């Protein structure tokens, strides 16, 4: 009873809060007092070019900003730039080798000096300096030149056609730093500029007043922020350290802090904290998908080493699409999410679940259909002819070895899936392997996920950033792990389809975002619903929490979680 009331209360306050205060959050800068953020990993520096850590990137995003960011759907939105350059608006050249950014007019740094294209060029020089190791060097891959056109315009040139030219100056990893402040910090001297690295001058909503490394830093609202009514908070305390449980408690149970980052906790633990009614856990989804991989080659131990699990021998029964489809139909993904991830997961049928333009509307697998799976196997000739409860055809029985890494949630998934598969006459043998061995990639070990000496295996994978091109290109013919490549390769299923390869090539030369989305969705469908080579199960997201009195939070997995902190406000109660 108590729990139910608490939940109802929480739901009611959630539903009512936006209505009651929707209009109340406009006003002058600094009206809402102090904002307190807790990260259970403490930032050690506020310069993302010197640290690849998420904690540093996100902490710095309160102070320094890029030209454009990704919003919660993965779409590009301009920040310091006037607009996002595309081929359509002439910002990206037809041959896809140049992108021209234009800054907003009248932008000033927090010290009052104007932001110019020289700062943008300096940022590139700072990171691409050959003497200094830049943590975000990958963002500037392929850049041959960054040149200033006029005070507000800068052009980036790439060494080859780049259909996704939004590496430099986009997103939290690549913000613009002030040339005047960092002028003497180029190359090897970069780590020595303690003041600049700890207290960068920026264009963001807050200005650092004190930075204590690996502990806490404080800030005040930026008087020169481009929107006079933002930020709503006059000061900021950013506390780092502790663990996920403690920071979850601080926001959800005691209310000491307003925002807690990345609560990697069991769903029931988060739910029990949320019962206190002080804060609300929020979740957002990126591209991390827990999936079953079907082995299209024969992993039988009777085969010689070098033939086993290679394209030389097709799988005795998983090469039949009816079997793969039936295996997918028998799974209740909703239940898997409930058991394993709660709020931090959602059922999916897609290998690429986001950003929105790349996500296919494929949702046929979401309903479990044991009867349909049975009918499909019957129709394909897989019947239990010898009466042992396992379907067979031509002397081949549907006996599956199903492996994954050792992890409590994965073993629960194995138990559930084994049960469902037994209902469609498929016998499953489970195996779990220590994660360091399974993902270790040692070509000498028979237990790595690349070697795939099993019929089905389960793990999660994702792609970096918002563009799935490289991720989808992994499933090219010949890119499979095999003896002559020392069992390295990303095409784990040994999938091979010339039509798919043609689409990889087309994607690599297409710049138009809508067309890219179309191709990527078609490729996703070829791997998932059309061929059932990959059977996605759960889209795993991230859970953070904010106080019930904090409004405007939109959790974003494509950029810094604090991407829209300027729009946050106090709801009043």
């Amino acid at each position, binding site marked *: 009873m108590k729990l139910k009331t608490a939940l109802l209360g929480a739901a009611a306050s959630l539903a009512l809060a936006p209505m009651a205060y929707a209009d109340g959050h406009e006003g002058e800068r600094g009206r809402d007092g102090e904002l307190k953020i807790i990260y259970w990993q403490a930032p050690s520096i506020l310069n993302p070019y010197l640290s690849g850590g998420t904690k540093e990137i996100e902490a710095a995003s309160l102070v320094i900003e890029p030209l454009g960011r990704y919003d919660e759907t993965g779409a590009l939105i301009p920040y310091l730039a006037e607009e996002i350059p595309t081929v359509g608006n002439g910002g990206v050249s037809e041959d896809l080798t140049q992108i021209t950014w234009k800054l907003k007019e009248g932008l000033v740094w927090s010290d009052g000096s104007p932001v110019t294209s020289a700062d943008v060029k300096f940022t590139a020089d700072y990171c691409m300096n050959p003497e200094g190791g830049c943590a975000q060097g990958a963002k500037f891959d392929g850049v041959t030149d960054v040149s200033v056109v006029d005070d507000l315009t800068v052009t980036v040139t790439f060494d080859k056609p780049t259909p996704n030219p939004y590496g430099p100056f986009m997103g939290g990893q690549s913000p613009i730093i002030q040339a005047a402040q960092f002028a003497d910090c180029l190359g090897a001297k970069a780590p020595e500029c303690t003041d600049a690295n700890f207290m960068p001058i920026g264009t963001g909503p807050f200005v650092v007043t004190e930075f204590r490394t690996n502990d806490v830093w404080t800030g005040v609202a930026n008087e020169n922020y481009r929107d006079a009514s933002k930020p709503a908070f006059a000061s900021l305390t950013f506390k780092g350290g502790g663990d996920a449980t403690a920071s979850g408690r601080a926001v959800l149970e005691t209310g000491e802090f307003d925002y807690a980052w990345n609560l990697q906790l069991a769903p029931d633990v988060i739910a029990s904290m949320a019962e206190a009614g002080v804060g609300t856990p929020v979740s957002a989804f990126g591209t991390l998908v827990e999936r079953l991989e079907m082995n299209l080659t024969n992993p039988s131990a009777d085969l010689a080493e070098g033939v086993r699990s290679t394209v030389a021998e097709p799988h005795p029964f998983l090469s039949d699409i009816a079997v793969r489809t039936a295996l997918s139909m028998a799974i209740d993904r909703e239940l898997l999410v409930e058991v394993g991830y709660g709020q931090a997961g959602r059922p999916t049928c897609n290998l690429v679940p986001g950003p929105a333009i790349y996500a296919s509307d494929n949702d046929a697998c979401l309903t479990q259909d044991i009867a349909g799976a049975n009918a499909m196997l019957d129709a394909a000739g897989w019947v239990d002819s010898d009466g042992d409860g396992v379907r067979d055809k031509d002397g081949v029985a549907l006996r599956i070895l199903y492996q994954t890494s050792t992890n*409590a949630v994965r073993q*629960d998934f*194995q*138990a559930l899936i084994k049960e469902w598969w037994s209902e469609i006459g498929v016998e499953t043998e*489970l195996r779990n392997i220590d994660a360091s061995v399974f993902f270790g990639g040692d070509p000498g070990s028979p237990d790595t996920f690349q070697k795939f000496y099993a019929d089905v295996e389960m793990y999660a994978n994702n792609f970096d950033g918002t563009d799935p091109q490289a991720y989808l290109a992994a499933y090219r013919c010949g890119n499979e792990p095999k003896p002559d490549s020392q069992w390295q390769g990303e095409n784990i299923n040994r999938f091979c389809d010339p039509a798919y390869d043609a689409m990889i090539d087309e994607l690599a030369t297409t710049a138009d975002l809508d067309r890219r989305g179309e191709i990527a969705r078609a490729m996703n469908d070829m791997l998932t619903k059309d061929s059932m080579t990959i059977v996605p199960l759960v889209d795993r997201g991230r859970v953070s929490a904010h106080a019930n009195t904090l409004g405007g939070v939109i959790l974003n997995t494509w950029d810094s979680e604090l991407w829209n902190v300027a729009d946050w406000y106090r709801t009043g109660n």
Partner: protein
Amino acid sequence: MTDQSVDTAVEELTKPRNQWLDVWDQFKTHKGAVVGLGFLIFITLFCAIGPFVWDVDPGKLDIRNKDVRPIYMAIFDGDAKTSWARPMGTDHLGRDIMANTMQGGRISLAVGWTAMILAVLIGTLVGVFAGYFKRLDGLLMRFTDLVLSLPILPLLLVMMLLFRDPLRAAFGPEQGIFILIVTGIGITSWMQTARIVRGDVMAIKEREFVLAARSIGTPARRMITRHLLPNVMSPIMVSATLGLATAIITESALSFLGLGFPSDFPTWGKILFDSVDRMTAFPERVIWPGLAISLTVLSVNYIGDGLRDALDPRIRGQ
């Protein structure tokens, strides 16, 4: 007076007592050992006969009845989700905990007994040979030192890697792992027994009755079986009980690390391992298998203690 003589007469007429009855009488005086024996019999019957009485499939998932608390929770908390159909509750996937504890106990005890018997056999063999034949002593004892210095967990890991597939093909997944684990534990825990037995054999070998036996031409084989083994029986028994305890604990540790049996194959250690995440919300899930392991090991240790006293003729009768 007359009464006294009658009594003596009766005593003289009774048959001489069987020495095992003496052992039993002595054993009975050790309270811990008796309680331990009682518990061991109980837990063995619980696991061996239990599944026939409590006919629930331990692997059966029943997601609607997940997280059922043990029946006694109803006393403390009227709202707790309890059910008489699930007296010890269910886990987070709705598997019956009582059926799992029984099934897990079967495996854990089977591994314990088999590995112990294997270890004692090897240990006694090596110990007797090393103690009796001087020429073999150095060789066998250095070999023992060598095996003693092998770390068991990495060794088992390597064994898993090398022999799992062939054994699985020959005996099936569960049987294969069983043989692997039992052999692994057996061949890495015989060394203590071997050293103790060797020491005792060397001491007994120098005694007069052995000299006497040798002087009438008793061959080595007869000497060992007839004169040495019966005299080292008590240390062997004791190390056997200790070995049983170690084997159960090693198997638990392996399962706890996720290296033992497949995940759908319950053993006490595995049940513990699976329950640690939800220890605070459902303490009973770690308490019961943990208690089963500890009590079994403890009771076996007490039995060993009692047996040592009972088998030693000098202590017996005091």
